[in-house]
């Protein structure tokens, strides 16, 4: 079973790291690691908040990029190099370009056109995100004692490209292959939808 979750060990890195760094913090020896953790954490939360509160879509997109970079930095500080680079490459690189394209094509420059009315949808949305926040706090702050021990001892070994590659071509070989079929289906689908003409 151990091998199953190795590739996703970054999360454990996260958990181990977090608990050890908080301990360090209380022992009043603020290492570079803890400093980075809190700085990047603050940047990511701050940029996420800025992103949802900006009126201009372009500003939101820029804050989202900042958020991606801060998250990438967090991954890096947790020894998950591969995930960190993928985060920057895929999210900050590819997905953001898509966002910017959509903003450009929709021509959302005039933010006054956006609906600013107070609606029940917003209340539901706010309620949901508050619920998720409470749930996260609940799970990670109050139920720590109940969490089973991590399957991994050395988080530093997990995040390397070698390890992830190894897992990808042994334990996770089959899902990896299925992904290729998935992508082929997606490509065919995209072509079909793009060729379609509306009356």
């Amino acid at each position, binding site marked *: *079973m151990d091998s199953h979750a190795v590739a*996703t060990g970054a999360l454990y890195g996260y958990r181990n790291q977090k608990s050890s760094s908080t301990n360090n913090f209380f022992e009043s020896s603020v290492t570079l690691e803890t400093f980075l953790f809190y700085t990047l954490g603050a940047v990511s939360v701050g940029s996420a908040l800025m992103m949802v509160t900006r009126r201009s879509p372009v500003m939101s997109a820029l804050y989202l990029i900042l958020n991606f970079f801060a998250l990438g930095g967090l991954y890096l500080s947790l020894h998950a190099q591969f995930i960190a680079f993928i985060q920057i490459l895929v999210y900050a690189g590819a997905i953001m370009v898509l966002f910017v394209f959509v903003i450009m094509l929709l021509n959302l420059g005039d933010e006054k056109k956006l609906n600013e009315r107070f609606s029940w949808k917003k209340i539901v949305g706010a309620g949901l995100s508050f619920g998720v926040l409470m749930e996260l706090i*609940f799970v990670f702050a109050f139920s720590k004692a*109940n969490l*089973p021990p*991590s399957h991994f001892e050395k988080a530093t070994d997990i995040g390397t490209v070698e390890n992830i590659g190894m897992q990808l071509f042994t334990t996770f070989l089959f899902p990896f292959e299925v992904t290729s079929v998935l992508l*082929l*289906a997606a490509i065919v689908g995209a072509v079909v939808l793009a060729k*379609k003409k509306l009356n």
Partner: protein
Amino acid sequence: MVDQALLSLAKFLPEITLAITFCLALLVGVIFRSRPRLSMWVALLGVVVSIALTIREMGITESVFSGMIAVDPFATFFKLIVGSSAIFIFLFSLYSAEVLSTMKRLVEYSSLLVAMTLGMYLMVGATNLLMMVLSIELTGLSSYVLAGYTKEASDSSEASLKYIIYGALSTGLMLYGISILFGLTGGAMDIYAINRALVTSPVNPIALLVASLLIIAGLGYKISAVPFHFWTPDVYEGAPITITAFLSVASKAAGFAMLIRFFKIAFIDSSAVGLPAGIWITLQGFEWNKIIAILSVLTMTLGNLVAVWQNNLKRLLAYSSIAHAGYMLMGLAILSDKGIAAVLIYFVVYMFMNLGAFYVVMLVSNKTGSEDIDSYKGLGFRSPFIGVSMVIFFISLAGLPPTAGFIGKLFIFASLLDAKWIWLAVVGAINSVISLYYYVRVVRNMFLRDPDENSGPLKFSVPEIVLLLLLVVPTLLFGLYYSPIVDFANASARMLGVH
């Protein structure tokens, strides 16, 4: 590792066949550009071969590809359901005016249907969270495109877009639930490992509840359970009828297979001793079967009540299929192998009667170009055979003897009463009565109303009639001679790693 992968391949022939067929159908389409029908025949042949290979796998219980997929009687059963409905859908497509009107793109249509079938074959066997998500996505991506496929009209595009947005949302919710579960269990992705972790070290029940509710959101979307059903009527109405029929039977079957397997393996107390054979209990402090029971009541009640007001046959059948998902969910809430077997029996029956009803709608709409209930006026006189077949399908959907639908409902209700879930059985029975009303409404239009003056008799070709017979005969036959499907379902309720 290599040896194991090679050994796994040998147990994996149906899926490999489908993957090859998918590529081959595309290639044939590219090479023989002027004959798009050819790739449909290739696709049909591929599915037939995959079914033959699935039948060869009957009785095997094994885990393949380092625990990613289970090949067991349960999965084999659902593969047969999915595969046979795929064959029916291909045959329907050969006579569907809608599909044939966009002949040029028949290649993509056939190949995506195969991809969707492959996705569902993987869904029914997935025993790993990663595989579950990947297979749902493969099924989903193909079906989003197919739903907005043939008609170059806005309602078909609307259907596709709605399906994508709801699909993305529900998959997102499900992934979020999975990530919570992953964290709670110390990084388990294998559903057996999740169960071990949950049994040995009890976790916070509220966190577990939230995680499983989110996962139910993802799976509930696939089986169109209330309150995750919003896409169903619009997508069913906008999509080509062949795809609607496929979504309502195969997609639902695959979703149910995954739901049942996931809950039955991950969330039961596998350390409990002294239980009677075939009965299981939930994890302590987490009675998920009550959630399922509530979902089933909501699903069937809403489905049946809203169906009463529908005038479009596709929408009516959409709500009716929501209601049927509700009946089948009852079987899971019981927590016994008997309940699961009842669901399996229901699926065999449901496949014939629901595909049949959609096929009649397709035949009528081929001729009249309409799916409105008014275009069914006097259908019984314009084409007696089609009319009588539709009555049989509707009686079966309502669950009246002597049709197969009665047997399906009978086993569900019997297992409910057996497990002392009286109130749920009563709700189910009341729902069946409501459903009778809207089915009879259509029947009344067909036989008690005169056809419009300028409408002559409808003529159908011999192959169309033969295909209809292939669905009518089992619907009647299994109502009278049901022991083979009951035996088959009982044998198929066995899953890998559950005793």
